[in-house]
């Protein structure tokens, strides 16, 4: 375990437990903007079932931890989305689902926001148009990994920026804590 700042074992353990609680109970706000929202709904539905991982969709931003920006963010809705983000209590994270919300996607037009990270900070970018439910779940797991590594004292820039993911083999171990 990489402890960068020496803040005592007890504090670290508490932090560790809290971080475990947070990453296993990520409640996204159920806000859908466009096509990706349909795939987000499919992720929550029976075939992929985010509830397995403790992820349940909440209607109100006040009770959610993750904002999954699912779909094209246009200029007109951008201030509203920022408001939703501001209404969320800390700690909070943002997953930018799909190309449109990440960089404007295939809509380099006058009306579209070229990347939601221009108004709110984004933690995980999930490419795809729209990403399949499995790709979104992978993105959520990347977020869980990020929460874990942040608690271990790494700043997010240190997490490797680019890997070349290739074959997608199922995970072997059944335990989820370590990931």
């Amino acid at each position, binding site marked *: 375990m990489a402890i960068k700042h020496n803040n005592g074992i007890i504090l670290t353990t508490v932090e560790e437990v809290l971080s475990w609680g947070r990453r296993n109970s990520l409640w996204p706000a*159920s*806000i*859908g*903007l*466009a*096509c990706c*929202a*349909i*795939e987000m*709904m*499919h992720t929550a*539905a*029976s*075939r992929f079932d985010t509830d397995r991982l403790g992820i349940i969709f909440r*209607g109100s931003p006040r009770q959610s931890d993750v904002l999954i920006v699912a*779909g*094209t963010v*246009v*200029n*007109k*809705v*951008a*201030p*509203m*989305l920022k*408001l*939703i983000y501001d209404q969320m209590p800390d700690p909070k994270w943002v997953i930018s689902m799909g190309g449109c919300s990440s*960089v404007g996607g*295939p*809509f*380099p*037009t*006058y*009306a*579209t*926001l*070229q*990347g939601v*990270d*221009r*108004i*709110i*900070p*984004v933690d995980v970018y999930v490419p795809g*148009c*729209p990403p*399949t439910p499995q790709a979104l779940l992978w993105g959520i797991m990347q977020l869980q990994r990020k929460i874990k590594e942040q608690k271990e004292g790494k700043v997010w820039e240190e997490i490797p920026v680019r890997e070349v993911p290739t074959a997608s083999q199922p995970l072997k171990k059944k335990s989820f804590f370590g990931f």
Partner: protein
Amino acid sequence: MQFSKNKNLWIDDKKIQILKEKYPSIYIEKFKNAVFLNIEKENLIDFLKFLKENLTFKMFIDFTCVDYPNHTPRFQGVYFLYSPEEKQRVGIKTWAENNTLPSIISLWKGAKWAEREAWDMFGIKFEGHENLVRMFLWEGYEYHPLRKDFPLEGIKNTYLPSLNLKPEENPAHNYSPYHTFVPSMEDLEKTQKARMPQKKAQVVLNWGPLHPGTHGTIWFLFDMEGEYVKECDIILGQLHRGVEKIAETRTYTQFIPYTDRMDYISALCSQIAYVNTVEHLLEVEPPEKAKWIRTMMCELQRINSHLLWLGTYALDLGALTIFLYTFREREKIMDIIEGISGIRLNSSYIRIGGVAKDLPEGALDVIKHFIKDFPSKLKEYETILTKNRVWLKRNINIGIINEEDVYQYGLTGVVARSAGVPYDIRMIQPTDAYDKVDFDIPLGKVGDCYDRYLIRMEEMKESLKIIAQCVEKLEQLKDSKYIATENPYVLPTLEETFFSIEAMVKDFNLRIYGEQAPEGEIYMSGENPRGELGFYIVSKGKGHPYRLRIRSGAFYNLQIFTELIKGRPIADAVALLGSLDPVVGETDR
């Protein structure tokens, strides 16, 4: 009632003669799939009234504008009307002198939003419009984007870098820290104020735009007295991405993926409607097999779309489990579409002249398995819902639409059929293999939410029937061609490019210059699960359309919501919106 494929759907010469006698100044433009009557601005209202009252063109289909920067006056308004009795369409064109046109709300209430849109996109004023505000963009936005002198990317005058990046960092070659102007909350409040200048009742409720119940990002304004809605307006444009503008800079093939992303729930239906329009413009005839594949995929997508509607509708009315049951079946259809085309949702599978790929091995087996299994699942949904007393209470006599509304607002699809109007493009103008399959068109008698529910349930069963016929036919057509590559407008397949230098050159030419369509205009539509999805293309002989107008079914269907909700509690808004079934991607484009 059977219609042959070659029936001319446009106004006949007899009626044109009558019109010519009454209005000697009109000028007739005839194209293969469109007839336009040009009339001067002064006589427009009179002329439209005559068409509506004397020549039975009483159904409003669409209104849009075209920009000709080198012509004075610059803008041309185009109206489309339909005669339910004669099954004929007509287009009316008029030049907007001084950038103004008379408003036709007095004739058709459905023109209200279309005129707002024209104001928003082209900056044309309408005399006599009750509240001419921006349709998609916000009040205070300076430009009118669909004008030809406005760039597609907009005016990038704001420094708005990514918050995740260090100042000098450049993540990708097409990244720029400069951005178009993003409105502030004040701008949006101004937009809201413009919609509802004075409140009449107790409280104005902003329902949406980012609200779980609004099917995306529709922004409702309810002026409420307790739980009851007194006044209502809808602000659209929270998903306005400029698709019509994009179309003007892309070749006909390149635009296909964008049609998916308009109505993302029924991507294949939109593609088929678009590709059919382009094929009629280019006069390309797809091979037999492609037609049957298209019909089959279209109906699969229709089931898929209706299932999503059923799920979200039930979810909105509180039946949580139905939502997950319908998504279970949707997963199956998504699997089929993914296996055949490669992507689950926005498949971009249809190509000009056929389909992108042949059916893979085993596709028909899977579809057969699905149509055998699906009726039992449909039965389950019906058992839970159809006769449930709560369901009856929430649906019966809510949002009654009558025949007159259908014509006034240009309602199409299930919403029109619930009022007993047999308006189905599959019947009126059968494309692909629709003239060769047997199926019923269910109609409603009352026109309430319950009728719309029943009709959609019936349509799923009818779609299954069509799919079964397609599968049967496709099993015979196993080894025939799926794309008409011999046509000069059709892109060659990969195998042809690999083995023949001519195909490679043809491929290069079509990719670089696009399909150089002959000069002309066309309006054609397809029966989308949400209503009539029409494409009006103006071609100037280039590789990309001069103007592409998308007549969205959901856009016009949604318009009647503001009327129906008046005097009803807010809980009915959910039921009503669900039963109209709009998709924001299509209403906003």
